[in-house]
């Protein structure tokens, strides 16, 4: 498995989740354990560019795949534009859900660009636009107990909206 560009052998114990592998074996503590049952999105990481829940993933299933965590988004010490935007728009209070929110948003934008429909997409024949309702629906798998949703929406919009997705 390649994690943030570095190779790591998958665990020998098949029970180890990708989340525990990242945190407990590789000491990458950016990815957070919220519910550990697929209900909160705090553990969201990117696998080959697609957002997944690392708590419901067995690490062994991801042998040979490329995993990107929040630690892998910054380049040469400079924050990813979305990280900066979350700061600028108060996209968090306690920050616990933030790594998952940011990884999720990065994956979400790729889905939108690819034309993946959502539950609020009116016309299935055309790709959805980058509007408020689409964004909230597509980010609904990431809960924020502080209720920073408005800031999160603003941050994502700030970085991606003018690119027309």
């Amino acid at each position, binding site marked *: 498995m390649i994690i943030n560009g570095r190779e790591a052998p998958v665990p020998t114990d*098949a029970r180890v989740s990708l989340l525990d592998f990242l945190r407990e074996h590789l000491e990458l503590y950016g990815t957070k354990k919220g519910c550990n049952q697929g209900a909160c999105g705090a553990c969201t990481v990117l696998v080959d560019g697609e957002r997944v829940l690392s708590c419901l993933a067995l690490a*062994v299933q991801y042998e040979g795949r490329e995993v990107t965590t929040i630690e892998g988004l910054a380049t040469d010490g400079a924050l990813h534009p979305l990280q900066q935007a979350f700061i600028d728009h108060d996209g968090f209070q306690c920050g616990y859900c933030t790594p998952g929110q940011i990884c*999720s948003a990065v994956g979400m934008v790729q889905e939108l660009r690819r034309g*993946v429909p959502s*539950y609020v997409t009116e016309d299935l024949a055309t790709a959805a636009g980058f509007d408020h309702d689409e964004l909230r629906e*597509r980010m*609904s*798998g990431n809960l924020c107990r502080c209720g920073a949703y408005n800031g999160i929406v603003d941050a994502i919009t700030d970085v991606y909206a003018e690119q027309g997705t």
Partner: protein
Amino acid sequence: MIELTYSRAADVDDAVRRAADGQGRYLGGGTNLVDLMRETVETPSALVDVTGLSREIAPTAGGGLMIGAAARNTAVAEHEAVRSGYPMLARAIVAGASAQIRNMATVGGNLLQRTRCTYFYDTDGSRCNKREPGSGCDAIEGFNRSHAILGASPACVATHPSDMCVALAALDAVVHLRSASGERTIDLCDLHTLPEDRPDIETVLKAGDLITAVELPAPHAAERSTYRKVRDRASYAFALVSVAAAIELDGGTVVGARLALGGVAPKPWRARRAEEALRGQPATESTFLKAADAELADARPLAGNAFKVELARRTLAAVLQQLTEGDRP
């Protein structure tokens, strides 16, 4: 989670061989099984990973679509042929779970996911006939707001959680299976069983049976169809009631309809009584409500979920109203 072995199936034959001793469980995206293993509701000693098997989505000779069982939910929902020919399926899939889970979950796994009844999950504190046959059911007298109003039994009132399966039931999908004794097919509507006195048995599958594909018959060009889900919050919640509906009109008269309900029964509920009540009738709200009443005549609500009867009735009628907008007499 108890100790277990893990292996990756190279192909269908290999998968079936690895699970032949009856100890192995097929593993898809893991979005349900991993959680159940962590809660010790499921305790397999061997996992056979089948996510490397066919995820192809390809047209069939009959004008339909064959979807490999390892296709991810997102891949099905975004596929051009699904969006144009089977819009209710695309909408049902994106109504379910979250985007992260849809990126992981396979079609085969979606069919075999288990109920989210909280008593089923509560290994420490609750009796559950599905988890432990004969132990009793704490949902019947308990918090049963989300439970079944159709098809349940005194042993179990849990609902089937899938959205995708509700659309597949309405679409007359066919499930392709493979076992050590060969290949066979079964209608999706016949895959899941009602609980009766054995709620631990949820499908007609035998140990070692592998779902290899789901086949959709050719789209009915004259039909309009959609999927609507009613839930406690606007997104990322299981259905209280959902409706998959396809209807064909001639003038203002209903030629035929294909309907299924979710969130109300132990299996994806094909609403054939409602379909029968619609046929040949004027496409009016009163016809739609009568059809819903016909389907719900046998509803047996519990203390906490009586609202579902009226909710299902109104949602079914509202979806049919929506689909026939502008063409009603």
